[in-house]
C-alpha cells in the first residue's frame, strides 16, 4: 500500500504546475472541465455560487468541515459580498477541482489553519464577482446602467422602482463576462463578517442527529467490511486461515488486500464477529523488534549529529563559551495519536468503468489518484464525495483508508462500507512525532542574552508525505515555532536533525509548533526565572523588534512580529491578574507564540496536588488574529485547541512494543474529559481589521507551554518530559 501511495503521489506531482503564493506543495489537478460542466447545468456565475430559478442560493464549501466551522465561515465570506441572507443559503461540499485549490498549500486540502486565510479575499471576490454579474444581467435586461442598480438580500432594484430576484436573472448572469476589477467593501460596511451573533449553519442538523458523517453513508446493495491489519507498524499478511470466519452468518467474502484481510458481510457486526475468528500469520517487517528503549536511544543518538542549520547569526557557540552564565536543558516529547471520535471509514463502489468514493477526508484532491493506483482506473473515472468529518486533526490528510476500501470493493465487486474499530484506528494512525531537544542560552554579566543554541531531533513528516518540500535536510513542518524564534539573541544557531523512529509520523493539529513552542517557551521561562526576572516582562524586554525575515516559516507571518507579541503579552498580563500570590501548589505560567500569522499569549493557572496530579484551574488568552470572520466560532476554536493541547500535555503518549502501538482504546490513551477540562477559560481579542490569521491550531501548542510553566510556578519543578503525569513530574524533581 505504501507503494501505491508513493506511485500515486509521484503521478500527482508530475501532473503539477506551480500554484502561486505561500508554501506550495506543488500540486495541481487538471479538473477544470468538470467544473465547467457543472456550471452549465446550474445557473452558476462562478464555481462558488449556484442560484436556482426558485431563488435558492447554494454556496460551495471547498474545505472539509471537521468542527472548525468552515461550513459557516466560508459561506459567510461569499455571502458578505453576494448580498444574500447567510441564514437562508444552502451549503454543499465541493468536489475535487482546480478552482478549489488552497493557494497556501497548493492542493485542495484542509489543514495548516489556512481555510480562512486562503479564502479571505478569494471568497469575498467570488461573492462580489457573482453579484456584479447578477446586477449586470438585470441592468442589461432593463436597459439601464449597472451603476443605477443595487443588490441586497438576493434582490436587485433599479431606477423607477424596477425590481427582480437573483433567481430570475441567474441564467443571464451566468453568461455575463466575468468582471476583471472586483472592488471589495471596506470593513466598516461588513454586515456578516464579524457578526458576533451569527450561528453555525450546521448546528441544527448536528443536534438533530441527521448530519451525515462518512460512517453514516448508506448506498443501495452496500456490504460492510471489518478488517484485520498487522499489529506491528510495517507488517504484512503472510498467510491466513479463514475457515471459521467464512462460515459465519452473513459473511459474503473474506479477501486479502494490500494492508490486511477484510471480512465482508451483510452488516458490520457480522463482519466484525467473523473477523475476530481469522487466524493470520504476519510477516512482521522491519520494525518487529521496535520498542521505546530503541526509539529513545535512536533519537538521542541521532541528536549527536550536527543536523541542518535553518537559522543562524553571529557565532552562537563562541558567545555561549564566553558567556558569564550558561543555561542548558534537554526535552523529551512523546509520540501522540489523533484519535478523532469517528474511526476511519470509507464507502467505496468500484466498478469496471469507474468508482465512487464517499469519505470523510481532509484531502479530497488526492483521493482519485491513490484510488486510481489501487484499482487500475484513471483518476478522472473516480468521483469523490466529501462528508462531514467526525474530527480530523490532521489524521484525515492521510488517504490510506480510501485505498483500503477501494481495494476491498473491487475484490468483492460490490459497494462496501469499511469501518475501522477504535483499535484499528489507534494502532494504525500516523502519529505526532516524538522528539529530543537540546537548548543552551548564554547570558552576559549584565544579564543580556548573548548566545542561543537550539538542536531539535525528530522524525520528518513531510519526508514521508510531501518529500518535494523537504530541502537540505530541513522539513518546514519540523521547524515551526522555532524558525520564527521570537527573541533577540545576537548570536544564535538553530539546527534540525531528522530521524525515523519506526513510528509512522503524521501531521497532528499544530504539527511541530507543539514540539518547538514547548521547548522555546519552557526554556525562556527557565532563563527568566534563573536571572530573577518576571517571566512576562523578561519576554517583552527580549522580543525581537526588528523586521527579520524567517526563511522556513511557510505558514507563519514570515517576519519577526515583536510589536504584536508585546501587545498580547501586555493584554494577557492585565486580563489574567498576573502576579497574584498563590499558596504552595498553585501558580500561573505564561507562554507566547506567533503561528499561522496569529499572535497569542496564554496564562495558565494550575493546582498541583500532593500526589502530583495537575488541575488546570483557568486559562486566559490574549490573541491578535486580525479580522475575525465568525467571532463566536473563533472563540470555539481556541476552546477546542486548549482542550486538545491539554489532552496531549497532561496524558498523551503513544508507545510501541514488538513494533506495534500499545495503546488500543481510550482506556490506554487517555484524553481530557469533562471533569478535567479547565474550570475557566477567558479569551480576549485584539480588535483588528487586519488580514486574518489561522486559529484552528496555534493555541494547541501554546497552552501546553503555559501549563508546563504554571507547574513550575506551582511546584518549583521544571518538567522537561511530557506528558505531565505524576511520574514524570516526580521524575523531574532535582536530586
Amino acid at each position, binding site marked *: 500500500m505504501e507503494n501505491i501511495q508513493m506511485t500515486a503521489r509521484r503521478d500527482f506531482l508530475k501532473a503539477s504546475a506551480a500554484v502561486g503564493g505561500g508554501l506550495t506543495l506543488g500540486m495541481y489537478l487538471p479538473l477544470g472541465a468538470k467544473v465547467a460542466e457543472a456550471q452549465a447545468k446550474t445557473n452558476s456565475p462562478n464555481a462558488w455560487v449556484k442560484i436556482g430559478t426558485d431563488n435558492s442560493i447554494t454556496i460551495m464549501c471547498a474545505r472539509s468541515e471537521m468542527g472548525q466551522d468552515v461550513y459557516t465561515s466560508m459561506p459567510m465570506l461569499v455571502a458578505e459580498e453576494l448580498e444574500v441572507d447567510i441564514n437562508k443559503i444552502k451549503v454543499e461540499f465541493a468536489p475535487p477541482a482546480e478552482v478549489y485549490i488552497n493557494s497556501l498549500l497548493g492542493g485542495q486540502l484542509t489543514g495548516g489553519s489556512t481555510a480562512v486565510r486562503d479564502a479571505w479575499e478569494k471568497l469575498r471576490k467570488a461573492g462580489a464577482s457573482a453579484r456584479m454579474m447578477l446586477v449586470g444581467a438585470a441592468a442589461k435586461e432593463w436597459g439601464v446602467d449597472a451603476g443605477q442598480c443595487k443588490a441586497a438580500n438576493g434582490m436587485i432594484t433599479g431606477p423607477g422602482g424596477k425590481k427582480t430576484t437573483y433567481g430570475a436573472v441567474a441564467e443571464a448572469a451566468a453568461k455575463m463576462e466575468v468582471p476583471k476589477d472586483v472592488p471589495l467593501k471596506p470593513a466598516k460596511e461588513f454586515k456578516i463578517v464579524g457578526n458576533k451573533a451569527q450561528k453555525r449553519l450546521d448546528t441544527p442538523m448536528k443536534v438533530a442527529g441527521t448530519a451525515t458523517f462518512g460512517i453514516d453513508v448508506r448506498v443501495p446493495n452496500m456490504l460492510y467490511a471489518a478488517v484485520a491489519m498487522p499489529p506491528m507498524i510495517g507488517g504484512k499478511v503472510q498467510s491466513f486461515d479463514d475457515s471459521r470466519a467464512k462460515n459465519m452468518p452473513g459473511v459474503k467474502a473474506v479477501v486479502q488486500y494490500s494492508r490486511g484481510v477484510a471480512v465482508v458481510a451483510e452488516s458490520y457486526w457480522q463482519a466484525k464477529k467473523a473477523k475476530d475468528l481469522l487466524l493470520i500469520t504476519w510477516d512482521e517487517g522491519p520494525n518487529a523488534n521496535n520498542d521505546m528503549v530503541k526509539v529513545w536511544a535512536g533519537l538521542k543518538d541521532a541528536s549527536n549529529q550536527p543536523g541542518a542549520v535553518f537559522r543562524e547569526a553571529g557565532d552562537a557557540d563562541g558567545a555561549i563559551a564566553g558567556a558569564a552564565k550558561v543555561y542548558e536543558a534537554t526535552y523529551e516529547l512523546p509520540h501522540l495519536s489523533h484519535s478523532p471520535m469517528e474511526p476511519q471509514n470509507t464507502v467505496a463502489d468500484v466498478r469496471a468503468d469507474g468508482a465512487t468514493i464517499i469519505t470523510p477526508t481532509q484531502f479530497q484532491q488526492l483521493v482519485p489518484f491513490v484510488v486510481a493506483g489501487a484499482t487500475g482506473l484513471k483518476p478522472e473515472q473516480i468521483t469523490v464525495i466529501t462528508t462531514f468529518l467526525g474530527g480530523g486533526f490532521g489524521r484525515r490528510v492521510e488517504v490510506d483508508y480510501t485505498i483500503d476500501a477501494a481495494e476491498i470493493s473491487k475484490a468483492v465487486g460490490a459497494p462496501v462500507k469499511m469501518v475501522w474499530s477504535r483499535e484499528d484506528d489507534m494502532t494504525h494512525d500516523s502519529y505526532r512525532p516524538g522528539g529530543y531537544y537540546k537548548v543552551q542560552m548564554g547570558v552576559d554579566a549584565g544579564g543580556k542574552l548573548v548566545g542561543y543554541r537550539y538542536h531539535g531531533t525528530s522524525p520528518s513528516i513531510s519526508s514521508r508525505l510531501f518529500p518535494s518540500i523537504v530541502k537540505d535536510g530541513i522539513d518546514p513542518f519540523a521547524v515551526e515555532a522555532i524558525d520564527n524564534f521570537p527573541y533577540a539573541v545576537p548570536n544564535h544557531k538553530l539546527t534540525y536533525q531528522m530521524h525515523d523512529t519506526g513510528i509512522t509520523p503524521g501531521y497532528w493539529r499544530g504539527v511541530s509548533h507543539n514540539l518547538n513552542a514547548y521547548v522555546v517557551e519552557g526554556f525562556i521561562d527557565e532563563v527568566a526565572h534563573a536571572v530573577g526576572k518576571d517571566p512576562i516582562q523578561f519576554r517583552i524586554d527580549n522580543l525581537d523588534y526588528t523586521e527579520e525575515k524567517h526563511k522556513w516559516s511557510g505558514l507563519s507571518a514570515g517576519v519577526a512580529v515583536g510589536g504584536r507579541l508585546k501587545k498580547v503579552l501586555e493584554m494577557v498580563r492585565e486580563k489574567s491578574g498576573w502576579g497574584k500570590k498563590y499558596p504552595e501548589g498553585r501558580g500561573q505560567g505564561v507562554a507566547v507564540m506567533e503561528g499561522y500569522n496569529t499572535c497569542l499569549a496564554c496564562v495558565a493557572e494550575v493546582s498541583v496536588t500532593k500526589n502530583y496530579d495537575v488541575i488546570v484551574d483557568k486559562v486566559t488568552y490574549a490573541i491578535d488574529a486580525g479580522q475575525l470572520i465568525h467571532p463566536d466560532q473563533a472563540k470555539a476554536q481556541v476552546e477546542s485547541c486548549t482542550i*486538545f493541547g491539554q489532552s496531549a500535555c497532561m496524558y498523551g503518549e503513544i508507545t510501541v512494543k514488538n513494533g506495534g502501538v500499545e495503546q488500543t482504546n481510550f482506556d490506554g490513551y487517555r484524553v481530557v474529559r469533562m*471533569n478535567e477540562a479547565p474550570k475557566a477559560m477567558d479569551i480576549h481579542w485584539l480588535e483588528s481589521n487586519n488580514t486574518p490569521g489561522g486559529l484552528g491550531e496555534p493555541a494547541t501548542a501554546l497552552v501546553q507551554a503555559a501549563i508546563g510553566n504554571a507547574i513550575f510556578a506551582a511546584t518549583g519543578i521544571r518538567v522537561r518530559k511530557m506528558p505531565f503525569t505524576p511520574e514524570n513530574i516526580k521524575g523531574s524533581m532535582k536530586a
Partner: protein
Amino acid sequence: MNISFNLNGKPASADVAPDTPLLWVLRDTLGMTGTKFGCGKALCGACTVHLNGNAVRSCQTPIGSVAGQKVTTIEGLPANHAVKKAWIALDVPQCGYCQPGQMMQAAALVAQNKKPSDADIDAWMSGNICRCGTYPRIRAAIKDAARMA
C-alpha cells in the same frame, strides 16, 4: 431471531443474532445513524441512548436484552426538548460526532436534576469524550437546559 422493541415511541423489530449490540441494530438494520460508534467498549459515550429512560451505552447492550423495552435515540428526542434547544442556543457542536451521545447523556441528567452543580455535571458527563473540546459549552448548555426542563 426476530426481536421486537419500542423505538422512539413506535414498534420496531430486527431479525438478528441476539448478541448483536443495539448500536449496530440501530445503525445498520434500522438505518438510524444518529447514534454513533466511537470505541465499542463503553469508554467514550458516543453511542449513548435511553433504555426505559436511562442513559446506556448501546455498543454494550445486546439486542436480546432489549426485547419488549423502550429505546429512545437522538432522533426520538423531541426537537423542542430543552437539551436540544440549549445545544442550539449555545452552538455547542463542533465536528458534532459525539454530540448525540452527549445530548442523550445530558437529557437523562436534566430529567432528574433541575439544578445540576458543576460537580454533578462532572460526575454525570465524564464518561462522554469530546475530542473537539466542547466541554465548556456542554456544561453551560446543561445548566440552561435544566432551567428550561
